[in-house]
């Protein structure tokens, strides 16, 4: 009988996280304080984060010990299984070996507890009694609610009002784990009251919910704030995923030629691939692919170049992935993966050519998700479907090339509370649109004459 899944014994679960910062070929640029223009220091962040997390944010230690108390909690669902996708391989008739790392087995159903648990722990040992956070549909809020329950911390979640009203299930999950959840904007904070005064029916936004959470964390003694993506310490905590994968693939006698993950804020992608990026820096030949969660084509089809930040050409030149300043959607898309919410670590890997990014049209992602569900059984989160779609593309390519490639995909979470999106797909309510190459090439002529940055990629 063939081995379907590789399950590490608990004794083999990694006991350290991997920190890529000391291995980055190009260090991250320091973040400057908006008021002083000096690099942001620990004292700027202590009102909302405990010191151990701030230290991890800037640490140059390559490996950081996972505290015993965190390891103990990780064992509730970790090590997570690595599956061989025989069903999908057969369906695609591909010579590729497809492995998927199932992060959907956590109590919250996704990879997010990998960082929520240590964040709750470090807050607990630092004297925090109550955490504040914000959430949209509740993926992060539910992971943190679960984690706070494990360590006896109080949690208040400001949930965007429109999500609060229309997505009850994750709110109920949060409340089941003991969190207190309020619709944002709320009358509980100055920020919320200001908004409600202007617009009593305001449906809220993530920006408003963050303002409320931070205000409470700053104002109340023994309270802090928690964020589930983007920051370096979040990427660090997620690396337990990739470190487990390295051990599991060694048991299988394989090593990945291709690694694929969907990249929204970057944490699930980074968690899976960073330990392999280290191998790549040290000479391994791996194709590491971040799949964009929207149809934004910038990372895929635009060069990295200096461009004006605005169509009026009034702003300083900004180094960015660009389709040219006269290409109208560019102004939005140039911000896409790199600037709007993507982790700086992931952005830098892209600039250093250690990873690449692709985008997949949404119809293809849902087709992929359906194919995966019907061959492997698991119903994926819509974001995860982007990674599956890219996996299918790579597996088909392997077939065309006649190569037995090993593909590792991060299956970041299940979609069992996301069935409305599947319903839209199955009912035929989704469409695709793609920008013609000719339109992009015409727009790129506009930046031909501009000076090129040293990391220029044409």
């Amino acid at each position, binding site marked *: 009988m063939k081995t379907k899944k590789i399950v590490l014994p608990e004794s083999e679960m990694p006991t350290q996280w991997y920190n890529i910062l000391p291995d980055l070929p190009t260090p991250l640029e320091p973040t400057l304080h908006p008021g002083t223009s000096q690099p942001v220091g620990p004292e700027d962040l202590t009102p909302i984060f405990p010191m151990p997390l701030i230290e991890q944010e800037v640490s140059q230690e390559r490996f950081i010990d996972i505290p015993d108390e965190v390891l103990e909690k990780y064992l509730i669902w970790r090590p997570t299984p690595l599956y061989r996708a025989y069903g999908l391989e057969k369906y695609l008739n591909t010579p590729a070996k497809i492995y998927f790392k199932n992060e959907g087995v956590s109590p919250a159903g996704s990879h997010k507890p990998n960082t929520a648990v240590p964040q709750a722990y470090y807050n607990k040992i630092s004297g925090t009694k109550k955490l504040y956070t914000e959430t949209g549909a509740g993926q992060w809020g539910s992971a943190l609610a679960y984690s706070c329950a494990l360590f006896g911390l109080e949690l208040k979640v400001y949930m965007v009002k429109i999500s609060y009203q229309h997505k009850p299930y994750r709110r109920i999950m949060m409340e089941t784990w003991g969190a207190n959840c309020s619709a944002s904007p709320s009358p509980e904070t100055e920020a919320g009251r200001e908004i409600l005064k202007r617009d009593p029916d305001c449906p809220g936004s993530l920006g408003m919910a963050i303002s409320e959470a931070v205000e409470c964390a700053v104002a109340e003694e023994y309270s802090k704030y928690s964020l589930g993506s983007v920051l370096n310490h979040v990427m660090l905590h997620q690396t337990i995923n990739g470190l487990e994968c390295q051990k599991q693939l060694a048991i299988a006698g394989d090593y990945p030629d291709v690694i694929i993950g969907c990249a929204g804020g970057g944490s699930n992608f980074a968690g899976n691939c960073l330990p392999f990026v280290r191998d790549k820096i040290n000479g391994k030949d791996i194709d590491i692919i971040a799949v964009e969660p929207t149809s934004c084509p910038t990372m895929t089809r635009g060069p990295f170049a200096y461009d004006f930040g605005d169509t009026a050409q009034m702003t300083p030149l900004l180094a960015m992935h660009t389709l040219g300043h006269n290409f109208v959607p560019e102004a939005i898309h140039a911000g896409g993966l790199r600037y709007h919410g993507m982790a700086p670590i992931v952005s830098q890997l892209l600039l250093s050519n250690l990873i690449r990014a692709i985008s997949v049209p949404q119809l293809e992602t849902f087709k992929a998700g359906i194919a995966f569900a019907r061959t492997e059984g698991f119903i994926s989160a819509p974001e995860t479907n982007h990674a599956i779609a890219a996996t299918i593309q790579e597996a088909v390519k392997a077939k065309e090339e006649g190569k037995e490639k090993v593909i590792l995909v991060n299956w970041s979470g299940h979609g069992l509370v996301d069935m409305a999106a599947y319903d*839209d797909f199955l009912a035929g309510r989704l469409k695709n649109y793609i920008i013609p190459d000719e339109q992009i090439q015409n727009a790129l002529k506009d930046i031909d004459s501009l000076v090129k940055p040293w990391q220029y990629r044409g």
Partner: protein
Amino acid sequence: MEILKMKTEKTNPDDDYKIRCPRLGHQISFSYCLSENNGLPCFMTINCWNDHFDAEEFLRKRLSQKDWEKVFNRPPKPKVVSLVELIEKAKKRTMDKA
């Protein structure tokens, strides 16, 4: 790959038509995106909706040049900077209250 269709719709969809918001993580109607940003559109609006109708043309007609620049042409801030700004605002609110 699927044959990709060019957009043909010119009008914005009504509230029954919803697509997945990559920021919130659930289905959302266009009217929400249109005022998500303190009454202005979410910076992702065109990116998300141009697949479904000509959102760019719709917004160009609706927004002043100043608002267009504010929403779509301003380089976004790194997350840490946004957090530091929020901390400063929160400190000020707390001091004002005291």
